[in-house]
């Protein structure tokens, strides 16, 4: 029984090492004229409370200069969003975002949005020493999401590695 327990713990540890590599955080597919990068969903916590974190995933085609960021936002009631801002190394305000759907999920409401902005802006946000904020402006309230200073270095490390990979491969198609 003891040996079984230690085997289980060893497998869990090995699998956790497997899960933490940056290769596990994105997918790259080759297309005729370029490459598609998909950064798997990751959480951005609420800044001022312990409410449910925002979930974001990013798609980038090397034939384009813009990234598509799809975000899931959970609130306690249905909200009408006016704009979404990213504030960090620079400030980007996005007003022409797309709303995929709004639907109840358990006790909360799930809002799914799609926004586009230049890749260079995403790179600047993660190049900054201080963490950026994502602020969702609705008619009823403002919701701010962002990392704490404690976890920022770890979060920007894996994202910067992916952005560096993208940059290295973009040159192949220019």
């Amino acid at each position: 029984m003891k040996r079984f327990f230690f085997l289980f713990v060893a497998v869990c540890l090995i699998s956790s090492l497997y899960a933490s590599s940056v290769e596990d955080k994105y997918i790259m597919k080759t297309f005729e004229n370029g490459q598609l990068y998909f950064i798997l969903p990751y959480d951005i916590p609420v800044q001022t409370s312990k409410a449910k974190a925002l979930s974001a995933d990013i798609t980038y085609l090397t034939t384009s200069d813009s990234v598509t960021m799809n975000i899931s936002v959970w609130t306690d009631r249905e909200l009408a969003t006016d704009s979404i801002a990213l504030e960090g190394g620079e400030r980007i305000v996005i007003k022409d975002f797309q709303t995929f759907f709004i639907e109840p999920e358990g006790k909360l409401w799930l809002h799914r949005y799609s926004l586009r902005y230049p890749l260079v802006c995403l790179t600047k946000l993660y190049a900054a020493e201080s963490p950026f904020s994502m602020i969702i402006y609705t008619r009823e309230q403002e919701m701010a999401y962002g990392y704490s200073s404690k976890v920022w270095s770890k979060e920007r490390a894996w994202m910067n590695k992916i952005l560096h990979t993208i940059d290295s491969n973009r040159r192949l198609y220019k």
Partner: protein
Amino acid sequence: MKKHLIVFAAVVALALGLSSCGAITDAPGVIFMGHTHPMAVTSNKVGTKVGTVTTMNLFNLATWGDGSVNKAAKMAGITKISHVDVKTFSVLTLFCKKTYYVYGE
């Protein structure tokens, strides 16, 4: 007797585990699974949008999550599906996580 019961329980658990996590893969691993494999391909053009959904299974006693192609497509605004991949992560078939990637336009 106790040893035989433990072995029997382990075999039953593994058999049950293989029936869920191992079912949709041609290379099930009893101790560890961490691989991605194709699930479905359509005749639509290869898409540039990607949607993901995840399901979880614990000790083969509980399974949760919406792993439908519809949910994944909805999350990415996909209206024409080109193909679907699935990534399976499993430890001793007692903990299993499946992530479905739906590609399309």
